[in-house]
């Protein structure tokens, strides 16, 4: 194996280990309490080490800092975020940041690892099933996010009503804030998980399908931005406890971006029908 291949090999192993961090974040969001942090942290640290190996290999092979193209710079950035997190955790024990950073680093590393194309689909059935799964996950994720946004707006109305102490029969039937809060947490957690899986499925599909061509596409950028906003929302809610107006604006933004992403992707269909 040439050093460039070795570099991508170590990066892929690191991605697999980073996935443990993603699983930790998902379980934490769904259960609404920290879960499996220690093993995830160990895997994350190991992944970060292998990531360093990968970058060093690449550096030695080319003699240049591996930030020459999009993939390399994303990978490098992911590595630095990982180092940053480990440092912050070691220095300040800021564990709740993991919900935000673990999925981010995983996805960025995954993106970086798609620099070298793999052989195309061996089976047409797998190709379409994979795509179908991606679309189904996206749509389910959108449904959960829309539910989150609607519940956030109702929360806002109910909160106003209780704050201003006005008894209006129109809103008397609104559910209690506690119930809405639970609903928002659940639907948002579910939406985030579905969207994350959908993004991973979509990225790997596009990677196998068209090598590196897909990365420059604007709709890919919108999709990743939507996922990132969703991640920010989940983080602000779980660690900073964003509720009320801020949470409503945030969830509406995510739903708006989801709508844009969807609109951008509908244009894909004719191309896929070929």
């Amino acid at each position, binding site marked *: 194996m040439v050093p460039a291949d070795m570099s991508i090999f170590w990066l892929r192993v690191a991605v697999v280990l980073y996935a443990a961090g993603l699983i930790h974040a998902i379980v934490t969001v769904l259960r609404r309490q920290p879960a499996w942090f220690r093993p995830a942290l160990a895997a994350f640290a190991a992944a970060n080490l292998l990531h360093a190996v990968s970058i060093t290999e690449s550096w030695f092979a080319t003699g240049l800092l591996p930030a020459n193209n999009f993939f390399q710079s994303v990978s490098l950035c992911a590595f630095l975020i990982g180092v940053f997190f480990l440092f912050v955790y070691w220095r300040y024990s800021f564990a709740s940041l993991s919900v935000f950073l673990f999925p981010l680093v995983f996805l960025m590393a995954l993106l970086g690892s798609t620099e070298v194309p793999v052989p195309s689909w061996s089976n047409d059935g797998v190709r379409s099933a994979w795509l179908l799964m991606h679309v189904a996950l996206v749509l389910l994720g959108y449904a959960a996010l829309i539910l989150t946004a609607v519940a956030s707006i109702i929360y806002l109305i109910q909160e106003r009503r209780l704050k201003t*102490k006005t008894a209006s029969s129109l809103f008397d039937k609104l559910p209690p804030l506690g119930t809405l809060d639970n609903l928002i947490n659940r639907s948002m957690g579910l939406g985030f998980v579905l969207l994350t899986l959908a993004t991973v499925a979509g990225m790997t599909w596009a990677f196998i399908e068209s090598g590196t061509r897909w990365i420059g596409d604007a709709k890919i950028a919108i999709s990743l931005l939507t996922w990132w906003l969703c991640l920010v929302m989940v983080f602000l809610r779980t660690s900073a406890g964003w*509720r009320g107006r801020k949470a409503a604006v945030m969830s509406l933004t995510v739903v708006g971006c989801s709508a844009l992403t969807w609109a951008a992707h509908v244009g894909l269909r004719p191309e896929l029908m070929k």
Partner: protein
Amino acid sequence: MRLAITGLNHTTAPVEVRERLAVSADALPSLLYDLRHVPGVTESMVLSTCNRVEIAVAADEQCDTESALAGFLAKSRNLEEAWIRPHLYHFRDRDAIRHMFRVAASLDSMIVGEPQILGQLKDAYDAARTSGSINGFLDSVVTRAFSVAKRVRTETEIGQSAVSVSYAAVELARQIFGSLKGTKVLLIGAGKMSELAARHLERAGAGEIAVTNRSPERARAMAELFRGRILDYTNFTGQLHEMDVVIASSGAPHFILTRDQMKKVMAARRNRPMFLIDIAVPRNIEPSASELDGVFLYDIDDLQRVVQNNVTSRQTEAGEAEKIVADEVERMIARLKARELTPTIVGLQQYLEGIRSAEMERMRGRFGNLTPQQEEALDALTKAMMNKIAHAPIAELRRQAGSGQHHHFLDALRRIFHLNEG
């Protein structure tokens, strides 16, 4: 058969009168026993609560229920009839049914929509049943009253809003937290009103009730009531972020909780909602704290305003409930009338069927056995004739019953067809 109700309530009699007439649960069986011996009374039930004493009876048409029941009530309580007479009301038939339905639906209560009255009526009904004082006519009216009360509860919102300050606090807490299971409550100050509100919260499932007070003795006494812990009055704010509901009623002349303190508390709670009830005068919590996200601050005036709104909305709902009651009274009367007519209608049909089958038998004797076809044809023919004969008087009876003028016609019909014999 007639239905009659005599009694008094909080609107017709002051408490001095009501307490003299009140009947304890132990005394109820003997009172019901005595009622059975009032001439003309066939069924009876006695309802005695702190706001009303009523006797409901089913009696013969001829019975003067008004004087009979007033006399009985005075005698049984060893009072002058003339003394209680001005406080008594008396309802008969349609009005009695309407009154019973209104009482069951809590429309006649001091606090309209309060739910206890239905339970008290059920107890009165059980006592009457146990002592064998209620069986047919009155029974059907009372059990119907229970369904009417249920219909009013489900179709209107008469009992849904709190009409006392301490209960309004619990209702608001429910709107904030949903279930109150496991909610943590802190009482600052150990006043009567905060005790009442805490008791309501405890009943609604609050998980822990902590107390802090300037005087440790009173804090201890209050904490014992709720088996709660005591927080140190000088630095309880350190644990404030654990609390979901705070009821402040201390006599402190200044703010015990400021906006800045609450800001820190909310950050420590990660903005999870917190319900602050300030029933102290002067107020204990800085009013601007309510501007913070997730802080719901209600002072005594706010709570009273909630109660006032609820009272007004109950009055609106009561209008709806009255419509339901009016509708149910009509249905009940129609049902009672149908019940009154049924024996005559069935008797008439049986009488005609008797003639028909006797004539068929006679004909068989004269013409010998008929073929099955002939038998069937004759059967159909005679049945159709008898139905047509019965149709006109039954239809007329029903028509007359609708206008309430059916008694003479009913009597005539029974005589013409000899329905009173045998």
